[in-house]
């Protein structure tokens, strides 16, 4: 067989293309298997969730915000363009636009609502992420892998709760006191609440829950019928943010 220069280049090019395509095919075939096995697993042993009792939440109190942002090295950038927040307050009407009306009573009108990542059952941010940098853990925590994030911000467009922040610049100069036990982030990645997974691993409850003196926050496994959180959910009427979008948010609010 005679191969001239052109022929060689053509075959070589096709070969390289083949090598590039192979991992894609591998993954597509793997995903099908993963889906098939996921459907079999009907029962989940663990599903972490949070209840926010807005009746107990005191206006002007920022204990949970300070605790969370301090322990996670969240920078304090005052400029609303570049700001980063994991947990913050917004007026009740902004947080629950579907529930807004002229006669909101019970002291809820204009009162602050604590907002954070909803750790959705069906997270749209995870669905759109092109690198699996954001993913859902078995116990329901929606995690960020800051090592893998390419900073495309597709997840920010997909999140209907505005829970994600992007590092528009180096965050370190804006962190007053760095907690050495937790990494900071670098410019160019997206970040958000991680349900204190690093604390859970040590057997601690989330920092915001721990810091709240008014017992406005509760955290636990909703798959465990005898858990404290299930008791609270049983005895109180709770609502969630934008449930109609089908994301299955796991932060429940008592109003």
């Amino acid at each position, binding site marked *: 067989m005679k191969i001239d220069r052109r022929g060689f280049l053509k075959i070589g090019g096709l070969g390289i293309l083949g090598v590039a395509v192979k991992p894609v095919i591998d993954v597509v075939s793997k995903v099908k298997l993963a889906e098939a096995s996921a459907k079999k697993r009907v029962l989940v042993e663990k599903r972490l969730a949070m209840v926010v009792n807005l009746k107990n939440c005191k206006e002007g109190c920022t204990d949970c915000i300070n605790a969370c942002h301090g322990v996670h090295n969240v920078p304090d950038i005052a400029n609303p363009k570049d700001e980063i927040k994991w947990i913050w307050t917004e007026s009740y009407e902004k947080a629950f636009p579907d529930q807004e009306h002229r006669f909101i009573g019970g002291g809820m009108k204009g009162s602050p609502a604590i907002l954070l990542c909803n750790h959705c059952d069906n997270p749209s941010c995870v669905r759109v992420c092109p690198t699996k940098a954001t993913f859902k853990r078995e116990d329901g925590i929606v995690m960020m892998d800051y090592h893998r994030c390419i900073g495309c911000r597709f997840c920010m467009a*997909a999140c209907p709760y*505005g829970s994600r922040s992007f590092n528009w610049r180096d965050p370190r100069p804006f962190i007053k006191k760095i907690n050495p036990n937790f990494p900071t982030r670098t410019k160019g990645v997206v970040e958000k609440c991680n349900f204190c997974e690093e604390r859970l691993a040590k057997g601690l409850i989330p920092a915001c829950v721990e810091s709240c003196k008014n017992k406005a926050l509760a955290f636990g496994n909703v798959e465990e019928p005898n858990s404290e959180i299930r008791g609270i959910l049983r005895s109180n009427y709770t609502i969630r943010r934008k449930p109609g979008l089908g994301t299955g948010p796991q932060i429940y609010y008592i109003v």
Partner: protein
Amino acid sequence: MFEKALIGSKKYWGLVIGLLAIMGVGAIFYLQQWNYGLGITGMSRDVSWGLYIAQFTFLVGVAASAVMVVLPYYLHNYKAFGRITILGEFVAVASVIMCLVFIIADLGQPTRALNIVLYPTPNSILFWDMIVLNGYLLLNILIGWNVLASERKSVPPPAWVKPLIYISIPWAVSIHTVTAFIYAGLPGRGFWLTAIMAPRFLASAFAGGPALLILLSLIIRRFTKFDPGKEAIQNLGKIVAYAMATNVFFILLEIFTVFYSQIPEHMHHFEYIFAGLEGHGKLVPWMWTSVSLAVLSLILLVNPITRRREGILALACVIVFVSLWIEKGFALVVTGFIPSPLGRVFEYSPTIPEILITLGVWAMGFLILVVLYKIAVTVKEEIEA
């Protein structure tokens, strides 16, 4: 064939050097972005995509429009377009490269861009966009280059090119459909959550791209010995007219659904671009400009008396291009974020560095186009001589 791009008139080299200079300025500001982060742009926590992604979206349309000359020529044997298919394919090559560069320019961690390939994620639309865009680029380079090379030797193109041409036709539709899916599948973004997004993208693409092609053909006729042909230009004009009319029709459909249903989450965005919201209305004059230009272009294009006059046709094409650029190359992306999911109206306007980086990428695209067109036109001149 590439040597044809290395021999040219003073005007040609002046153009090349001018574009390189603009690219250089863009590169300097990109360096600044590289060091500081995307904070040098006007993008914010609320409006997290801006000019870069809007340019990408607009240019996908320009790229897809090549199919409007390829399809009539190869599927319907419409000979007049035979002279300009290469022009369409090379526009596609230049625009897709610009699209890819705009995505890279928009990444917070550009050095990790290959993670999309290393950790392929089929549930992400961006993953599919990467595949269709690169595929389309490859198809158009292969087809354009091989067809031109055979034309030069006066032989029919190699047999394996034909199937690629047929594949490239649905592929062109796919790049814009997939790009529309990036937006149309997001819960909680009422402005984008519409099934008509992909058809709208295609309609605007088939208006804007051929409009650009008409302008380029007229420029080529003016400055070179190659004439793309009056018939081809006229028929492209008809395509622009139909596509632009369809595009305006689709937008009116959106406006009906949004304002008749009165669902606030969908309505607020349209109120923001057309009337302003909570005292914020930076985009309002832009949008009304876009609307007026669209109406004016339709008057000029639909009426055969004005369309047949090449001077007026050219003007109409400029108007179409500007109108669509405002609508799709800016407002469509930005307005999706205003108001934010928390009802906050935080406006966006691009910063000077952001605009200069954008211009740099456009200059790069035009440089690629100029070089490719130089080759194509020189070959065509030789054949006709």
